[in-house]
């Protein structure tokens, strides 16, 4: 029984890295403080999109053993795949920086010692986990640890909110009258893009290979998707709700992690604060692992190298070099004192390129009977898949103009 439960931890860790990593945590807090619950629909849309595409990726891995980036070069050709690689690699590297920065912030909040002191030790620790800790142990530890962010959901109840007013905000969909529409649109696009960042499907499908999924594991992969990502979305909505209940009425503009955990402290006291810090630590560290490994996965799968934690490092030398150098660069960037979470806002630009070029090949291969035989897409996956691709294309088109026009959401 417990083995079956643990089998879904890959989906949970992927979702944690996709919905409540440090960038998403802060963005959910910002959005909740500024717009109340009006953006819940964006998170729901993002959950739907990533569920459908992660399911396609998981099916492709289980039946054919091919992870997503492998297919991107095969379908798009080496040139377009290289464009995607460049964009996705930059997004992922910027995210690694943000996560390392996020872990440092959490330790600073807990210990009082300045964050810059922790950057190098954290980088070394992440590398050690990549080098020595088994994939399944890693995903179980950090996936389940990240679930401690669920304390935000508990806090929502202890804050005694006005439920009908919250419900009205959710159903309202539109921003409050005093907020500018372009800025609202910018945050909607940013929130949606972060729910569907390519490294989620790269990590999920590569994780399926690391775990040795076969056709017999089709139900396992689907359970991973249907449990993990909605859970991730719920966690993000809980963070949004806490901000909406406490900070939105007060008109506080969120800019720091300490403000986001404030509602939990208000509702649950010191115990709540301890749990939430543990949760954010696990989620952020887990996201650092997810993105650090993904940078290696995507480069290795583009060039055709051997890769993965299931191999001895000397058998996957180029993969480990990529991951190691990526971590080193990230540590150096964060050590300069740059605001790492602000860096993830810039990664939105690259999402405009990386998202369409990632999900189109997945949709095409999921329909290819040479790859999937009878497990190829049915009507539901295709209808939702095409619909989400249209949304992705629109988001890609407006992302950069909105970012310039609104000054990244000011």
């Amino acid at each position, binding site marked *: 029984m417990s083995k079956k439960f643990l089998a879904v931890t890959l989906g949970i860790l992927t979702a944690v890295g996709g919905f409540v990593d440090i960038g998403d945590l802060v963005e959910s807090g910002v959005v909740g403080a500024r717009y109340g619950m009006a953006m819940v629909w964006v998170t729901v849309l993002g959950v739907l999109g990533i569920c459908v595409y992660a399911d396609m990726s998981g099916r492709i891995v289980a039946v*054919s053993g091919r992870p997503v980036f492998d297919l991107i070069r095969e379908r798009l050709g080496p040139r377009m795949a*290289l464009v995607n690689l460049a964009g996705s690699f930059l997004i992922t590297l910027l995210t690694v920086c943000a996560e390392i920065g996020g872990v440092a912030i959490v330790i600073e909040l807990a210990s009082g010692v300045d964050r810059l002191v922790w950057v190098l030790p954290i980088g070394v620790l992440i590398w050690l986990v990549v080098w020595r800790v088994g994939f399944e142990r890693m995903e179980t530890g950090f996936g389940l640890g990240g679930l401690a962010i669920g304390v935000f959901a508990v806090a929502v109840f202890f804050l005694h909110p006005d439920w009908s007013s919250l419900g009205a905000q959710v159903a309202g969909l539109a921003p409050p009258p005093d907020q500018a529409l372009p800025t609202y649109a910018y945050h909607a696009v940013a929130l949606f893009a972060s729910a569907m960042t390519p490294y989620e499907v790269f990590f999920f499908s590569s994780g399926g290979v690391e775990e040795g999924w076969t056709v017999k594991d089709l139900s396992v992969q689907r359970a991973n998707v249907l449990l993990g990502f909605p859970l991730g979305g719920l966690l993000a909505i809980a963070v949004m709700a806490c901000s909406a209940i406490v900070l939105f009425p007060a008109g506080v503009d969120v800019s720091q992690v300490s403000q986001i955990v404030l509602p939990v402290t208000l509702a649950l006291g010191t115990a709540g604060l301890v749990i939430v810090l543990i949760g954010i630590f696990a989620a952020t560290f887990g996201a650092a692992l997810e993105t650090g490994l993904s940078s290696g996965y995507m480069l290795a799968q583009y060039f055709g190298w051997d890769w993965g934690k299931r191999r001895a490092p000397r058998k996957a030398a180029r993969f480990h070099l990529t991951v190691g150098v990526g971590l080193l660069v990230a540590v150096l960037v964060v050590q300069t004192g740059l605001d790492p979470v602000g860096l993830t806002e810039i990664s939105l630009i690259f999402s405009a390129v990386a998202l369409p070029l990632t999900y189109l090949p997945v949709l095409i291969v999921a329909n290819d009977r040479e790859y999937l035989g009878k497990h190829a897409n049915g009507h539901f996956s295709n209808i939702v898949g095409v619909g989400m691709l249209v949304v992705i294309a629109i988001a890609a088109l407006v992302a950069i103009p909105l970012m310039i026009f609104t000054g990244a959401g000011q």
Partner: protein
Amino acid sequence: MNPWTDLGRIDLGDALLDRQIIGEDGTVVGKVDDLELRAEGGTYVVDALLVGPEALADRLGGPIGRLLHHIGRGFRAQAPQRIPLNAIRRIEPTVVVTTAVAHATDSPSEDWLRRRVIGRIPGAGRASR
């Protein structure tokens, strides 16, 4: 054993180029970076699969191709590896070649990195657990 005849007509870009090559025992070889053609009887015949960053760089062309050439040489990449067609067992969904050929196909950059860098870090010989 004949992986081709029941396929009849194949499109090279779709079925061969940029596909992953693995050995029958699961050894990872690389990608089909290009195909070598041989003139015969008024047309051409596919002689071998080409694997290696040099072949990919030639195909990409332009400034990116040149950059890839430089990076490849920095990591001790050499002329592309040739895999003759008769070593191929299957081509869908990935290209599967005989185990002997898979092991014989070198990756100079991987070997160099293993000797000089990765292999020297403690614990490089065991997969993570």
